[in-house]
């Protein structure tokens, strides 16, 4: 009897799987059919609003990829749902801080916040300190404020908050994995196993071949941190309403500077000799090569920084432009084309998110490997 049962169970699980995948197919089809209608509904709403305010695609895109003093989720004007974040300013009279909600979603410089006798406005996400008796900030032709000053802005902005979130996630993931290995000797299960596979990927595919067997362990903490930081922030940046952290040039500059400092600090004697006085070539070529190689030290991290920034920003701009087409052409038929295209690009961005983290890490490892390498002398 026993062997006869098996095919029945198998066929039952087979139909169950078939039933499940049928459900998924129906959901996906419905989503595709309904998405243009949802887009149509919101397009109508915007069209009604645009009688007062013309839709400007450039402003919309710049607002989405830029940083801001509050974490805006949805809605517009007074109805918007925004997570208030602390605004921290260094003024002539010391540190001033208040929550961004005190601006009441205003970014046009109308709403004045008064703290310790100092008055601040938020004009296009720049905080200005108004002079005595001034009601609104005014600019000259080169966009310098005439009647206000710009205090040093140390605020926890949307990007900084998103970075804190990534840091918390990373601490949670990796301290969990580390404490597991302290307690138990066997292989981890589930999520920890997936993390360990990625850690080993960074070690065996990135660090070991590029830096070399002898020295790679010294740079593993940096490479792992950079890899997971970039990957997790990239993925979180793809969520609706999330911050565009790695598409911010200041963030990528800092990441590039870390690599530059590591190269400068760990460069071996051979590396500096090969950079500024290359052996084995005619003497008159040596100074020319020294200039080129010297510039190369700084061009390498600059290329790293531009690549990450431009890739992520370009991805966000493409998605927003495709969605923006609906509102530019003011027709719901466009949504049927542009929404699937935006979905396609979003899925492509999932790949780009990983690829950029991988490329940043592998190129950092390559540059560090070039710096620490010790040549055999002939």
């Amino acid at each position, binding site marked *: 009897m026993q062997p006869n049962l098996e095919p029945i169970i198998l066929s039952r699980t087979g139909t169950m799987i078939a039933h499940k995948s049928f459900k998924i197919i129906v959901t996906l089809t419905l989503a595709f059919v309904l998405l243009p209608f949802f887009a149509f509904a919101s397009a109508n709403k915007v069209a009604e609003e645009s009688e007062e305010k013309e839709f400007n695609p450039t402003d919309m895109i710049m607002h989405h990829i830029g940083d801001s003093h509050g974490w805006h989720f949805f809605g517009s004007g007074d109805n918007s749902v925004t997570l208030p974040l602390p605004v921290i300013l260094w003024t002539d009279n010391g540190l001033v801080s208040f929550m961004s909600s005190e601006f009441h979603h205003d970014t046009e410089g109308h709403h004045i916040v008064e703290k310790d006798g100092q008055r601040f406005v938020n004009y296009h996400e720049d905080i200005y300190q108004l002079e005595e008796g001034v009601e609104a900030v005014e600019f000259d032709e080169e966009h310098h404020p005439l009647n206000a000053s710009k205090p040093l802005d140390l605020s926890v902005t949307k990007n900084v908050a998103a970075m804190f979130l990534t840091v918390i996630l990373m601490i949670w993931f990796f301290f969990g994995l580390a404490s597991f290995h302290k307690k138990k000797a066997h292989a981890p299960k589930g999520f920890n196993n997936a993390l360990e596979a990625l850690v080993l990927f960074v070690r065996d595919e990135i660090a070991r071949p590029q830096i070399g067997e002898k020295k790679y362990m010294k740079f593993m903490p940096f490479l792992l941190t950079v890899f997971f930081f970039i990957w997790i922030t990239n993925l979180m940046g793809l969520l609706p309403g999330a911050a565009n952290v790695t598409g911010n040039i200041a963030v990528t500059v800092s990441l590039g500077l870390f690599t530059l400092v590591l190269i400068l600090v760990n460069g071996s004697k051979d590396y500096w000799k090969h950079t500024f006085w290359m052996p084995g070539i005619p003497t008159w070529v040596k100074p020319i090569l020294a200039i080129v190689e010297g510039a190369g030290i700084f061009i390498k991290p600059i290329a790293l920084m531009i690549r990450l920034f431009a890739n992520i920003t370009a991805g966000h701009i493409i998605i927003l432009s495709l969605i923006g087409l609906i509102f530019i052409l003011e027709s719901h038929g466009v949504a049927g084309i542009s929404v699937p295209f935006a979905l396609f690009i979003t899925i492509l961005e999932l790949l780009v998110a990983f690829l950029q983290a991988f490329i940043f890490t592998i*190129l950092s490892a390559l540059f560090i490997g070039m710096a620490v390498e010790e040549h055999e002398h002939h």
Partner: protein
Amino acid sequence: MELLHVGLAALGAGLAVLGAGVGVGKIGGSAMDAIARQPEASGKIQTAMIIAAALVEGVALFGVVAALLGVLTT
């Protein structure tokens, strides 16, 4: 005048992308050839291909960023 600036910036970005397209295409094509010759070395070839493609792509992105700055500062 502003339209001319935007047009020139777009043309510049297009030229940068053209060069990068040829470059990445050649790298990809050569990698395909190499993998067809030696399928067992495909892992190493892929890593080298991605590094080379990233370096070429970096140049194109310099062009795109320069064009973007050209548009945004006018």
